[in-house]
């Protein structure tokens, strides 16, 4: 699964730590999602989408092999 988290963060101008605080996870979790090492649960994906006020699909998308 791909994501545009890093870009969305840059647009909103918030750090990994800010985002982590807002959704109540650790900073390392945001980092592993951004580097495609960890696929977040639906709950976490929805929370992230809510922070950026966008639908989940515009941040997370399937890639070949998923």
């Amino acid at each position, binding site marked *: 699964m791909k994501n545009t988290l890093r870009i969305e963060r840059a647009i909103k101008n918030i750090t990994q730590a800010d985002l982590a605080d807002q959704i109540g*996870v*650790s900073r*390392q979790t945001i980092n592993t999602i951004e580097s495609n090492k960890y696929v977040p649960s639906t709950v976490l994906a929805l929370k992230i989408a809510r922070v950026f006020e966008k639908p989940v699909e515009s941040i997370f998308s399937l890639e070949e092999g998923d």
Partner: protein
Amino acid sequence: MKSRFLFPHNWRLAGYVILFIGLAFIGYAKFTQTEVFIWHNLRSFESQSITGPSINECFDDELQSLFLITGLIVIAFSKERIEDEHIAQLRLESLQWAIYINYAIFLICLFAVYGINFFGIALYNVITPLIIFIIRFRWLMYQERKVVAA
């Protein structure tokens, strides 16, 4: 995400203290060759002495095991400061990893060690899964935090 069956974060320090007490106890008993806690005239089912003569039982090894296992369990299963789903996944993967490694070592010992020495291996095997788990989990956390801090 709610993580169940975990101790509060600040218990981890207590876990280290309990473990240290256990290790210090073992070190002291080994070094001085003394028995510290002895229950005189114990009548137990195991020794079939409920009706017969009583025995003097040294409880040092029981207490040492209690301290070691309790300490390791608390260290292994206390929450991180922020315990989330990703960390829960790391935790489970480390646990699986620890079980694999533990049994691999055990199988090697099964064919490499015989006699009374094997009894020692079997005894250590009570705590090795916890030790391997703690090392593996802490190593993964250290690696990830290093990346984040960079």
